[in-house]
């Protein structure tokens, strides 16, 4: 058998002598470049989405932080809550050092740091929310931070002021929303419209991939591009609490593709045992010219079920994010499509597609909130989970998707109405 090792060198030499410069065309590079551009676009979309989610999270965090501080406004720390022993020690500390110095200091505070220091017969200090830097409302550790200076009320005793009560005043302007009703359980119903760009992911169905014509990709696959589509319908949502809601509705949804076919069928596939084994030349008189430009539309009735979170960011605006699944029932098809086996143009209605489909949707955006209604603008992305083509009969798996901006307006219905 060793004798045959020289076959290796024959092979190597032959491989080195083979040149395929003629087989490489500029269209090959164009196809690669197209793929790379598509990838770049996908990355940009992905990163934009991540950035949006990140921004949303940060804003939510900041707003939540403020909400926590606001909540302090409703607490009181008073002497009454401190036991007698501690009260005595506080009193001792308070009644400590120099009068003049401390008086100046307290004046400084009022003047420079704008702490509303209210003295009522030297009995009371009121610290309002304007100070905003209280880190702990437990009297024992009460520290007031002003411009990075820390004043511990024990150590910086104010002798002429007998502290009887320190409390944080309820501040009426700290409430973030002018719509108190937005914090209660309620229904919202309205209409939504989403202009979108629709495209699709196509894969070969491994069990039938042998039936795909060698020219399919070049003549048909690469000539099918994204197109405009839309989604319009009735929205219904239930707001469980101030943060969560569930939404559904009934929509007329489209998925679309743009076609630009221009080719001539010069041969036909020879299929043996469910696989193309060869191609036979057509009689030139039987050549078929396919010239077709247009958009294919797939119409669905969509029933979504989305789970959402919301976060007020100002008195009138809130951010909402939703994620969920939809049931899509294929109702109508418009257009023509090239057959993957013989490349012939066929009417969409003659092809087999799955009638019942499932899609997943994610959307997040800004809502303008008024007491009785709201208006929202949210980028959305939806993709079919299952293949639109029938897996038993088609050599291709197609998952359409659409991305667009959802424009929505809702009327609020409150529970007590």
């Amino acid at each position, binding site marked *: *058998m060793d*004798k*045959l*090792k*020289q*076959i*290796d*060198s*024959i*092979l*190597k*030499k*032959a*491989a080195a*002598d*083979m*040149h*395929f*410069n003629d*087989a*490489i065309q500029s269209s*090959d*590079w164009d*196809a*690669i470049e197209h*793929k*790379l551009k598509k*990838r770049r676009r996908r990355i940009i979309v992905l990163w934009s989405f991540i950035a949006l989610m990140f921004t949303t999270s940060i804003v939510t965090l900041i707003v939540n932080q403020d909400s926590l501080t606001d909540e302090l406004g409703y607490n009181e720390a008073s002497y009454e809550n401190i036991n007698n022993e501690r009260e005595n020690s506080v009193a001792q500390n308070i009644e400590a050092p120099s009068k003049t110095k401390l008086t100046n200091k307290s004046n400084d505070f009022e003047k420079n740091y704008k702490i509303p220091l209210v003295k009522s017969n030297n009995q009371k200090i009121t610290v309002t929310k304007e100070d905003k830097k209280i880190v702990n409302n437990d009297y024992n550790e009460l520290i007031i931070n002003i411009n990075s200076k820390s004043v511990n009320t024990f150590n910086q005793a104010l002798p002429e002021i007998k502290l009887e009560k320190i409390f944080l005043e309820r501040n009426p302007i700290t409430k973030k929303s002018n719509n108190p009703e937005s914090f209660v359980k309620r229904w919202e119903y309205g209409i939504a419209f989403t202009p979108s760009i629709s495209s699709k992911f196509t*894969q*070969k169905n*491994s*069990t039938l*991939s*042998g039936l795909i014509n*060698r*020219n399919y*990709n*070049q003549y048909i696959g690469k000539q099918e591009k994204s197109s405009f589509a839309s989604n319009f319908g009735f929205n219904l949502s239930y707001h469980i609490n101030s943060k969560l809601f569930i939404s559904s509705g009934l929509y007329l949804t489209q998925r679309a593709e743009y076609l630009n076919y221009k080719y001539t069928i010069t041969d036909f596939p020879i299929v043996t045992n469910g*696989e*193309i*084994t060869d191609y036979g030349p057509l009689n030139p008189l039987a050549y078929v010219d396919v010239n077709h430009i247009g958009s294919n539309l797939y119409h669905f009735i969509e029933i979504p079920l989305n789970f959402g979170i919301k976060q007020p960011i100002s008195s009138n605006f809130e951010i909402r994010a939703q994620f969920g699944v939809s049931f899509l029932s294929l109702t109508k098809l418009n257009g023509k499509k090239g057959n993957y086996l013989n490349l012939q143009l066929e009417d969409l209605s003659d092809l087999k597609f799955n009638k019942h489909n499932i899609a997943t949707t994610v959307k997040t955006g800004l809502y303008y909130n008024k007491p009785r209604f709201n208006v929202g603008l949210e980028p959305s992305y939806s993709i079919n989970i299952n293949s639109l083509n029938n897996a038993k009969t088609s050599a291709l798996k197609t998952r359409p998707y659409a991305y667009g901006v959802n424009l929505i307006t809702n009327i609020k219905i409150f529970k007590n109405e």
Partner: protein
Amino acid sequence: MLFEKYASKMMAVCMRYCKNQEDAKDLLQDGYYKVLTSIKSFKGNSKIDTWMTRIFINLALNRNRIGRNKYSHFEFDTKFEKADFDEEPVSEDIEAKIVIKALNELPEIYKTVLNMYAIDGLTHKEIAERLGISEGSSKSRLSRGRSMLNAKLKRKK
């Protein structure tokens, strides 16, 4: 630029792992896409074309495994006869085209091992890993492949 410089060489690799030019072109495009999107992982431990060749081979093997015949439609050669085992090696003065054509006519399992071992310089260990077979199988396929190719070349000559 990587494409201009190595496209011809990579096309030769693709042609060896695919049955027809269309499939090879598909592989060429997918391979370059893969190369260009993973260029950062090239450490410079080998020549860039060697690294690219490995990517093209892996891609061809993966696609053959996952999407049954995405790039090629091979059938096991059941017509192979004992008489084809001829141990007398063919002379080296044979046209490259004929050699490659004969190689392409071999059943896939032999052709792939011959390609990987004899032309692309992979070891039996590497071949075994990539094909999911034992090193012994790789060796026996190589041996059988050589015999079959030798027989075919003799007939063609």
